[in-house]
Structures are given as structure tokens and as C-alpha cells.
């Protein structure tokens, strides 16, 4: 075989492979359309730039979808991740065109895109996590919001009841209402403990402003990292709190909190962390023994319920408010033992909050 011929064969093989790949584009058509007979209910989630593996709300929303699928096998779930805010609109539109029964979007950044799509497609059902669009034309959006200050109140009480030094701390990632609401509730819980027990536990890192705290605005002054990624900064802040006498710290900063765990491990036994958003003993099981508890946001459950409701035709637009009552927010205990007496006291307080007899506004209790 001459040189030229061999070259020809090599090229032929590659071009052949390439044409097979391209040719299979058409082959695929039949096989995919064939299985579309069972009329499943499509539930779709558009994630933020974090993607479905962010160990935060995107992951929780996706988990909620899968839970819905587990309960109702007729629900088919799929997701689209965004690389930037410019992707929100086309991602939502893609799902609109694919005939999704409900489209779940995640986070305040998708507020505008979700609102536009909802107003453009009156019959399309939407749910948006942690946000409430203000200018909707139809009742086709369910805003999933969480009054996390209720569970944070219980967290604050637990911290105050558990501290040996009489000082606890908190800090946030960035000064967003969804962050400061946790810190506000935490301070309220500590102050409530001081009031009923006549104690004087101090809180570092957050001083609530006058007035009430809502998801639209929750002001005050406190300590913030400036982002949700810098674990070193989280470690430094926490170590400073420990140096100032604190023994329990409540980071409200996503994965930055892992820096707090590291600081507690360095400081040794007797120091602990109150985790946030999703149960620390599940998402970070290795460090469970350093967690006194978790102030959880019920993203999974609320997304699951929204999807299930849509699948069974019981979807209603409006606002879902996650509270202690509907388990949209909760205090979960960690790896550090808590006396039964404290647990029962917290259970009683929870009932009081649900009944409206105990306020979670820190301004209703004297500051120490």
C-alpha cells in the first residue's frame, strides 16, 4: 500500500466515524418520540448559577423535586442550570416550550425573569424559592418564603440555655434580608431567655434596628463576611468571637460556616456551632459532634409540596409562608446532647410562637 493510500484510509476512518455520529442525530428521533405515550407530569427547576450540586438552595430545590417524584411516580423531573443572569429567560422559556406542569425557580435574582415569564404565560404554573415577585398579573406564581426568624428564635434560646460563658455570637455572609432575618430571630431568642430566666447572656455580631423585621427589609448593624465563599474569613470572625468570650457561634453564610467549624475544632471542646439552612448533621455529617443544632429553612419540603399540589391539580398561586407551624422552618438538634428540660422548654416556646403568644421581634425584649 502506498503512502497516499494509507493516508486515505486513515482519513476515511475518521470521516466515517464523524458521519456516523452526525448520522445518529436522525436515528435518535424515532427512539425518543416513541416513549412519550404515558403523559407524565413534568416538573422542572431552573437553578441559579450554583447548579444542582451547590449544597444550598439549588440542591435543596432539586432534592424537593426528587422527593415529589418518589411520592408520585408519574412526576418526571428535570433541571436546567444557569451560568449567568442572562440565561434565566431562555432557560424558563425552554421549559415553557417543553410543556412543564410547574417550573420552579430559585432565588431573588430570578425574580424579574420569573415575573416576566409568568405574565407572558398565564396558564403556566411557577414556584419561586425565597422570593416574592411584586408585579404579577395572574395567580400563577407561588412564592415560597420562609419566616426563618421563628426557628432562629428557638436557636437563640437553645444557645443561651447552653452557653457556659454567657456570651454567644453570630455573623452573616452578606447584608441581605434573608440573612439578617436569621440573625434577628437569634438575638430575639437570646433576649427572651434572659428575660424569662433573669439571665444576662450577650450576643456578638448583630444589633437589631428599631421596628419590625420582614423579608423585604430587616435592618440592624452586625458582622458580615462580604460573600458566601470565604471560609478563612469565617474562621477569623469565629476565632475572634471565641476570644471575646463566646462559646457558641451562629454563622448565617452558607459554606463560609465551615470556617467556623474549623475555628471550633481549633479552640477545642466546649466550643460549638449553630448550623443554618439545612441540617448540618446531614450535609456535613463528619462535623456533627460540633453542631449544637441547625436553624433550618424548609426549601425541600415546600418545593416538594408545591410540585405535588401542581401534579394533583391543587396548585394555588400566591405566597407560601414557611413557618414553624407548617415546618417551613424548624430547629433541628445536632450532635451535642441537649438536656430534656431545655428541649421541652423549646417545644413549649414553639407552640407559643405558632399560637402568636410569643413575639419573635427582639425589640419586645430588653437588650442586655
Amino acid at each position, binding site marked *: 500500500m502506498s503512502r497516499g493510500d494509507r493516508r486515505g484510509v486513515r482519513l476515511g476512518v*475518521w470521516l466515517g466515524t*464523524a458521519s456516523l455520529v452526525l448520522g*445518529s442525530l436522525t*436515528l435518535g428521533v424515532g427512539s425518543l418520540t416513541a416513549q412519550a405515550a404515558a403523559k407524565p407530569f413534568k416538573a422542572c427547576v431552573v437553578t441559579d*448559577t450554583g447548579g444542582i450540586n451547590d449544597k444550598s438552595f439549588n440542591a435543596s430545590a432539586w432534592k424537593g423535586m426528587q422527593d415529589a417524584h418518589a411520592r408520585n411516580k408519574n412526576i418526571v423531573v428535570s433541571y436546567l442550570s444557569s451560568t449567568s443572569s442572562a440565561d434565566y*429567560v431562555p432557560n424558563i422559556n425552554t421549559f415553557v*416550550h417543553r410543556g412543564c406542569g410547574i417550573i420552579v425557580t430559585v432565588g431573588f435574582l430570578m425574580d424579574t425573569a420569573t415575573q416576566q415569564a409568568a405574565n*407572558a404565560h398565564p396558564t403556566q404554573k411557577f414556584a419561586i424559592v425565597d422570593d416574592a415577585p411584586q408585579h404579577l398579573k395572574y395567580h400563577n406564581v407561588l412564592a415560597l418564603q420562609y419566616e426563618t426568624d421563628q426557628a432562629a428564635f428557638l436557636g437563640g434560646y437553645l444557645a443561651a440555655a447552653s452557653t457556659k460563658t454567657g456570651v454567644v455570637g453570630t455573623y452573616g455572609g452578606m447584608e*441581605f*434580608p434573608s440573612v439578617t432575618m436569621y440573625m434577628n430571630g437569634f438575638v430575639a431568642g437570646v433576649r427572651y431567655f434572659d428575660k424569662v430566666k433573669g439571665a444576662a447572656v450577650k450576643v456578638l455580631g448583630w444589633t437589631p434596628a428599631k421596628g419590625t423585621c420582614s423579608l423585604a427589609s430587616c435592618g440592624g448593624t452586625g458582622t458580615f463576611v462580604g460573600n458566601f465563599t470565604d471560609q478563612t474569613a469565617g474562621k477569623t470572625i469565629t476565632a475572634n468571637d471565641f476570644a471575646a468570650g463566646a462559646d457558641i457561634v451562629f454563622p448565617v453564610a452558607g459554606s463560609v460556616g465551615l470556617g467556623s467549624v474549623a475555628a471550633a475544632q481549633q479552640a477545642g471542646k466546649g466550643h460549638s456551632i449553630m448550623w443554618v439552612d439545612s441540617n448540618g448533621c446531614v450535609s456535613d455529617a463528619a462535623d456533627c459532634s460540633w453542631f449544637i443544632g441547625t436553624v433550618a429553612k424548609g426549601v425541600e419540603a415546600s418545593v416538594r409540596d408545591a410540585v405535588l399540589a401542581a401534579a394533583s391539580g391543587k396548585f394555588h398561586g400566591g405566597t407560601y409562608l414557611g413557618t414553624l407551624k407548617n415546618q417551613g422552618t424548624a430547629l433541628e438538634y445536632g450532635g451535642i446532647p441537649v438536656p430534656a428540660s431545655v428541649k421541652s422548654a423549646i417545644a413549649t416556646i414553639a407552640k407559643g410562637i405558632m399560637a402568636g403568644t410569643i413575639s419573635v421581634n427582639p425589640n419586645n425584649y430588653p437588650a442586655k
Partner: protein
Amino acid sequence: MPEGRRRWWHHLTTQRPWLVTLYALVLGFVVGALVIITTTASVLDAWRAIFSSWSALGHAIKLTFDVVGAAYRTMFTGAVVNPRVFWHAVTTGQGWTYALTPMSETLTYAAPLIIASVGVGIAFQTGIFNIGANGQAILGGVAGAYAGSLIHLPTFLHLPLTLLAGILGGVAVGLIPGLLKAYTGAHEVIVTLMLNYVVAALLIFTLLSTALQQPGQQNDISRTIDPSAQLAPLFGAASGLRVNWGLAVAALVVVFAWWFLERSSLGFDFRVTGANPQAARASGINARAVIILVFVISGGLAGLAGIVQMAGTTHYLDGGFLIGNAGIGFTAITVALLGRNRPGGIVWSSLLFAGLGVGGRAMQAATGIPLDLATVIQSAVVLFVATPVLVQEIFRLRHTEAGEVRLATSGWGS
């Protein structure tokens, strides 16, 4: 062989730049197919089954082609056109928006990418590595957002002003490495690279602590720019297609860049400087002026890309603007490389990259294969383009008269 066919065969087996790019593309998709095969559990299981029974081979092959085929098919229909939907629109006159959305989306993403890549390409042709296009684009977006949301004017004044603000934002960031290199010899790669971080921090600062922040918001999100400052949808808001006048801006930029590089005296100075700085100096070209001007033009185009991205799609900024995978200023470097730094080549490579991204999303929605596959293909294509020797060996290409196919960028020396 008949003469005509022989000539074609000669074409296809002789190494030349466009052919290497084409074959690199083919290889990129082959690599993508391998990734799909090795990461899809069902396909792997089917192949494992052939160890117990040879009869499973047919099934394994069929499944492989089904899965890979479905992925690339949805990628294509999601990025260009779905023939079935298109035919439906033609025959019924209904659903044109749906039929044209894929193309509209690809063009929407391509427009700012073309602009940024042309800026990077002009710098490359002058021998300057502008790794800071992303930072320049971000500040372009920020400056444009100020002009678009805090000043209120009629469209014919407001839109040009907003675009101009974007350009000036990019120029402002670009001038820093330009002046430093011209007057102190500081290496532009390091300065531009580091400035990206500075600008990213500046973005957050402007969104949280200045008048740009959306009123009533405590989150890192900007005001929405006035409709008079927005790049309106090309076919009107009612069309439902996002493709906007940013595409026209990109077209103007391409024409300008072509004229600049091929026809202008200044562009000639740029090319001489890029090809042989010593000869440029001996020929009376003012190297300092060229360096500064390169950064003005390259930075200005990057800034324009930033404002086109914002004014054409979201109409507001958030803390993730052009950050991470969304950084068109970084993508522009590879796009310019793929397009061999020429305006025409950049148009094609931008469309390819935009199409892979848009099609990748459609593929993810339809098949569950992660969007990252598009990135894998993009990277593989660039890798093959950057190593012509590899492509030449795989396809056994003949050498051309000139000898070697050169890399589009030949070194990092300053």
C-alpha cells in the same frame, strides 16, 4: 481518479489552516461523544453486558448511537433550528416564535461575544495579550448601567450615550495596563489578569453601596436601565424573540475591525508591530502610541461587549455579571484563538461557541446530560486547534508549501 475528484482529495488531505479548524471541530465532537458514552450509566452497562453475552453487542451499539445521537440532535435543534417545528410553522403559519427561538438565542449570545473577541483579536494581532477583557467588559456594563438608569433622555440620545459609557468604562480599565506597559514595560498579562479581580470587587461595591443599587433592595442587584437605553428586540417585543439590536452593533464592530486591520493606516501599524516589533520601530512606528491605542481599542470593544450583554438581555446587573463561567471576556480569548484573530473567523467561532452553549441547554433539558458537555467540546476544539501537529498526525495531512501551520498566537514575549 478523475481530475476534479483528485483535486478535492488533495484539498482534503493537505494541511491548511481552515482545514485544521474543521477537523478540530470533528475531533471535538468525537471527544464529546466519548464523554457522553463514559458518563452515561445505561450505555456503560450495555457495554459491560457484552462480556457475558456477545449478542448484547448489537444492543450496546444501538444504545450508544441513540444516546449520543439524541444529545447532538437536541443540541443542534436547540441551537439552530428544529426542522419539525420549523415545518409546522411553515405549513400552519403558527408557532414562528418557537421555531425561530433557537437561532434567536444563539445570535443573542453571539453578539457580545463577537464584540469582545474582536477586541481581544486586534490586541493579539498587535502582539498584545489582553487577558483583562472580562474586567473591561464588567466595568463597561457598570458604566453603561449608570448612564442607562440614572440619566433620563429620549432613545436617540440615551442609547448611544449608554453604549458610549460602556465603551469608556472598558477604556478606563484597559488604559491602566496600556499606560503601565508603554511607560514602565510592565507585562500586560499580569496587569490585565489581576485587574479582573479588582473590577469584580468593584462590581459588588457599586451594586451594594452606590446609587446603582435597585431602590428597596438590599441584595446585590442594580436598577433596571430605562427602556430608552435598552437594545430593543430586533423584531419587536411582540415577536418573543430575544435577538436584539446588539447584533447590529456586533455587525458594525466586525465591519469596523475588518476595515481597521485590512485597510487603515493605523491598523497596518498594529499588524507590523505584532509581526515584528523591531522592524516596526525601525520603520518609524511609535511603539508607545501603538501600545496605548491597542488597549484603548481592545478595552473599548470589551466594554462595549459588556454593555451590549446587559442592555440586550437582562437590562440590569447583579453580583454574578460576567463572573465565572459567564465571563465572556475569558471566552473571547479562546474564540479569538479559534478565529485566528481575524474578524471573519471570529464571527464563525463566536457563533459556534454561542450555539454550543445554547444547544447545550436544550440538550440538558431534553436528555439530562449536563450542560458542561458543551464546555468539554469547546475546550477540545480549542485544544486541537492549538496543536495543529496533533490534528495533522491523526488525519495524516500533507505539509503545505509554506511548511507548518502556525499557531494564531506565537508567544508570550512582550
